[in-house]
């Protein structure tokens, strides 16, 4: 047994160095193998990149939607109609009382005559109220609610509190717009998550299939080195690197694809925004998002390769 004892002590001395060296050479070898078939490698990566780009773009769209249209930029409006016997000074007092509520951004008193003016400015209603014996419009208080973190339930609460105030006849709330937007955002978010899970599985399957083909094409070699004492971990290593490179390459392509479509989109949207004279900036794929994509792509590639390599290498045994 002396030879193997000798070999083991030799191995132990420079074991870690040799292990690192081996990792480096296997990593490079896997990259070279990919580069040997540039077209098929590229096509595989492109397929993976599209699968990664879809959910990440959808996520960006959702973030933009809630940024542009969501509660952060739009405020929830409420109108409190006052009873006819409320005087102007009582109404002013009520307004400043409402103003002190923490949920309220702004409370503005609109007197019956101001309401009449506003009403008459509308097309087709000119002179309509003047033809009546008295001004039928009640005074009202318009509230804008701090709705950044407001749920529909909280909005209902405000409504209930307001209607109990003395002098308030009725409350009208413009909730629909607010609710629709948040519902759409929630739906799209769920869609993006579902799509991400589905396509992540797809990425792992595609990588796994590529790894299976790579293992098949090297099956003789694998059997020979199993025969001379290679561990499964050793045999798996080049295929794990292959998966890692595929995933990383795909994620790089995905970042590139996202950036290209982002520029196209920004261009289209900016002309639209210009037309409305609005001052809006779009959220774009940032550095953190890019790094997250790269890390995600690499881990998916590695995971897909690991599953496939484990499965297929175990089934190859010398006869």
């Amino acid at each position, binding site marked *: *047994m002396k*030879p193997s004892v000798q*070999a083991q002590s030799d191995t132990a001395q420079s074991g870690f160095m040799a292990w690192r060296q081996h990792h480096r050479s296997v990593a490079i070898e896997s990259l070279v193998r990919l580069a040997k078939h540039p077209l098929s490698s590229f096509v595989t990566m492109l397929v993976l990149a599209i699968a990664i780009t879809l959910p990440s773009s959808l996520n960006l769209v959702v973030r933009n939607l809630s940024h542009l249209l969501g509660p952060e930029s739009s405020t929830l409006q409420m109108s409190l109609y006052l009873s006819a016997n409320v005087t102007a000074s009582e109404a002013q007092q009520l307004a400043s009382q409402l103003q002190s509520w923490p949920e309220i951004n702004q409370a503005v008193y609109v007197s019956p005559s101001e309401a009449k003016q506003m009403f008459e400015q509308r097309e087709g209603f000119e002179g309509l109220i003047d033809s009546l014996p008295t001004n039928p419009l009640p005074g009202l208080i318009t509230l804008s609610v701090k709705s950044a973190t407001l749920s529909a339930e909280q909005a209902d609460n405000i409504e209930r509190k307001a209607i109990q105030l003395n002098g308030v006849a009725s409350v009208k709330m413009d909730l629909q717009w607010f609710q629709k937007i948040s519902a759409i955002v929630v739906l799209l978010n769920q869609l993006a998550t579902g799509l991400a899970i589905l396509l992540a599985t797809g990425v792992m399957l595609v990588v796994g299939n590529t790894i299976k083909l790579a293992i098949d094409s090297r099956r003789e070699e694998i059997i*020979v080195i199993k*025969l001379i004492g290679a561990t499964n971990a050793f045999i798996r290593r080049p295929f794990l690197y292959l998966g890692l490179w595929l995933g990383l390459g795909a994620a790089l392509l995905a970042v590139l694809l996202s950036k290209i479509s982002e520029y196209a989109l920004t261009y289209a949207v900016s002309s639209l925004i210009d037309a409305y004279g609005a001052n809006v900036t779009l959220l774009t794929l940032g550095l953190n998002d890019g790094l997250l994509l790269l890390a995600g792509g690499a881990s998916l590639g590695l995971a897909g390769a690991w599953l496939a390599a484990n499965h297929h290498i175990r089934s190859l045994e010398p006869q």
Partner: protein
Amino acid sequence: MIAFEQVTKCYASGQEALSEVSFSIKTGEMAFVTGHSGAGKSTLLKLMMLIERPTKGHILINDVAVDGFSHRQIPLLRRKFGIVHQNHQLLSDRSVFDNVALPLIIAGFAPRDVGRRVRAALDKVNLLSKEKQLPEMLSGGEQQRVGIARAVVNKPAFLIADEPTGNLDPELSTQIMQIFQDFNDVGVTVLVATHDLALLARMPHRSLTLREGKLIGSGLPSSSMHHSSAQPHDADQPFVQVDI
């Protein structure tokens, strides 16, 4: 030391390839396994390296029963053996050097040790000048010698060969056997399966004779003078000329 204790091997097909085979080979010994085609020679060698598992009985390598080894233990067991195959099993897309280096890379040797040991092994089989060639550019005898270099490069305790001369003419066969003898002379335990009786008649070693899976003899050839292999086994000896 290699020992079989009442080993029986039935393949899944129902074929009983070995029945109740018992023998023992001492460390430093050289022996042959003979018998007609289908007698069970390859099966016997495969059982030692756990390519197959015995249906009954035990296999001891250096007094350790290996037949119950787990999948994780198998690679380390196989690294104790240098294996030479009839069809040499070289990787056709790698140079002679890279083929011989495989066992060292698998065992995790540092690159500078790999180069030194590969050249020592190739020198031993007189193929140092062909290290950059691909296996298919070599003759059959040379390919078999590359196979031997790969088998011994890790300085294994045991050298196992399954019909290593099966495809070679008598002159080359004698050459190959002489190389095995050289390794045995420096203390490596050698076991060679062959049906070439003419070849082993000239060598003074024990042969285990199989017939239809049964061991029917394990004696020395009649003409033999005892071969001395009693000197202690020194791991570095095979490559002493090159190591200095």
